[in-house]
């Protein structure tokens, strides 16, 4: 074990020990089992066991054992949450997390795994981390008795997600499928076209590039009230906000992308006497793709923010932003978080889809190359 692994293991063992000493009479059987496992994990720190019982030692050393400890302990803690959180339970919660970390440390320590395994790790490890975030969120809100009007536990939000699907779907349709998609497509599409037109004129390009850069850094979202005044309460005004928000990052990125092809590559096309459109489609646009995807990804987040914030300034009685602002007023925080979860899911899914598409289209870029 490395120094860090020993440290984690020691800390976990101390927590287990503390739990057992302070809570021996009060702990449920599940928690007792968890404490026992944690202490068994602690035994690995002693070299005596390695000599006395090598078979058991090698099983105990495996990362799967750490995973087992952490999951059993986490489960036992979650089951005990309703009865309030004593010091012993907290100690076990921390021990569970430390063993989870230890399992991850050990799993990724050796690189010599199959490609499939590495893929599972690169997906599983972050999910595992997400599990711990939710675990502590749940443990803290319920264990400390935080009022649900302040921060509802994930289990409550999950229940709301399931029970209010119809409302959530309607809001998603209004905000995402109507406003975001329309605004995003118009904003990004027109920006690429404008950038291609502007690029033909060097004077225009030199003027628009710094100005576009500047405008991209501005709090454009502030135009939301104006757009609501101009285009009304429905999704069109939100789409308009998104068009303005996404336009400049895309234009600036496309403009820089169009000049990304090297001088030598342009000379090459010149020696073929290639026309403007030929060199645009065969050389400059493909070379600009990494830049365009960069903007597409930035804009996917901006678009969602734009739509939701614009809904604060007026909307028909449907939409993610509308629901958030009204339910905050009614102190229905679980509904608010359910909407946030929908928005986050939509945002992550779009981002992920764009990343996959980027990998597809710009497979040749040094950051994606595979021999």
């Amino acid at each position, binding site marked *: 074990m490395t120094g860090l692994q020993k440290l984690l293991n020691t800390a976990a063992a101390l927590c287990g020990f503390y739990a057992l000493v302070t809570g021996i009479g009060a702990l449920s059987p599940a928690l007792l089992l968890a404490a026992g496992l944690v202490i068994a994990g602690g035994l690995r720190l002693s070299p005596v066991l390695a000599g006395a019982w090598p078979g058991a030692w090698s099983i105990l050393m495996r990362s799967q054992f750490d995973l087992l400890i952490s999951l059993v302990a986490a489960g036992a803690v979650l089951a005990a949450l309703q009865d309030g959180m004593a010091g012993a339970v907290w100690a076990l919660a921390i021990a569970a997390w430390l063993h989870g970390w230890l399992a991850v440390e050990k799993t990724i320590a050796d690189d010599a795994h199959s490609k499939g395994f590495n893929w599972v790790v690169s997906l599983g490890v*972050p999910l595992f*981390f997400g599990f711990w975030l939710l675990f502590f969120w749940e443990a803290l809100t319920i264990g400390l008795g935080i009022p649900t009007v302040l921060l509802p536990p994930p289990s409550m939000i999950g229940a709301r997600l399931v029970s209010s699907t119809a409302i959530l779907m309607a809001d998603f349709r209004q905000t995402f499928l109507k406003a975001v998609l329309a605004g995003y497509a118009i904003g990004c599409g027109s920006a690429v076209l404008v950038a291609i037109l502007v690029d033909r004129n060097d004077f225009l390009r030199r*003027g628009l590039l710094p100005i576009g850069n500047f405008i991209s850094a501005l709090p454009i979202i502030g135009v939301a*009230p104006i757009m609501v005044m101009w285009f009304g309460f429905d999704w069109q005004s939100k789409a308009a906000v998104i068009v303005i928000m996404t336009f400049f990052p895309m234009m600036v990125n496309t403009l820089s992308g169009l000049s990304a092809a090297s001088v030598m590559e342009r000379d090459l096309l010149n020696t073929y006497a290639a026309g403007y459109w030929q060199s645009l489609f065969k050389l400059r646009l493909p070379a600009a793709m990494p830049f365009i995807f960069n903007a597409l990804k930035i804009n996917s987040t901006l678009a969602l923010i734009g739509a*939701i914030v614009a809904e*604060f300034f007026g909307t028909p009685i449907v939409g993610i932003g509308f629901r958030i602002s009204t339910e905050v007023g009614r102190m229905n925080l679980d509904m*608010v978080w359910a909407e*946030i979860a929908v928005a*986050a899911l939509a*945002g992550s899914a779009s981002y992920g889809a764009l990343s996959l598409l980027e990998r597809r289209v710009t497979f040749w870029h040094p950051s994606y190359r595979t021999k």
Partner: protein
Amino acid sequence: MTETLKHKVLPILTIVAAIGVIWYGFTVYLNAPWQIDQYEKSATEWSMNELVRDTMAHDRPVLPAPHQVVVEIWKTTVQKKITSKRSLIYHSWITLSSTLLGFVMGTFTGMMLAIFIVENRAMDKSLMPWIITSQTIPILAIAPMIIVVLNAVGLSGLLPKALISTYLSFFPIAVGMVKGLRSPDPMLIDLMRTYNTSRWHLFFALRLPSSVPYLFTSMKIAIAISLVGAIVGELPTGAVAGLGARLLSGSYYGQTIQIWSALLTAATLAALLVIAVNIAAQITQRMMGVPK
């Protein structure tokens, strides 16, 4: 010198002038229907000249003319006492202070996360995807709730707004800094290894200095986005103070000139902040001996 003037300043000025002209054009176009309506109601004869003149003098225009906005800014900055609730300088200061606090906290958080990620592989694998996911959550949408919730637990004023800026600004810093900390040439790292350098020394002598240019590039993005966070954070506070509050109250009462003047002030503020980071970057890099 004349070269830079010709190749940099002139194109920018031309575009700015063009934007001004288009703006005036739209002012007339967008405000004309209402104005014509007015003429017809009062049955006055009107010429094109009068129409153009009158469309630029509305109290609550659909789109105010640039000079109206400039006059409004002038009135609410130079001609108002700084302590006045109607002074834009007062509101700007409120926004600026939470921007800066959020930016500082965000930069610190981002740097710390980057260091953890670079120095520990488990952190890298677990955290990096979540850092990216965190930005796909439209945090600005949670802003009103965060403000309300934090107010309920007794946190009010600057900090809640600053926390939103922090959330927005830590991301570019963390991503840029990770890139920067990993940027040293592998050959240089190997060289340090041949000196039997400790991990700490490698970090301070090689990784940290190489990350500085990346850090400043990220800081430019971070400070701009901090300002956005502060402004949106001011929207739900019941329109008390700050540029965001000016936007909100402007939109409640249809005070378009007030909205535009707040927007333009915010733009100016953003420009000044980015310029300030730029200057800091230049000074630092000169001190570190990086050629321009």
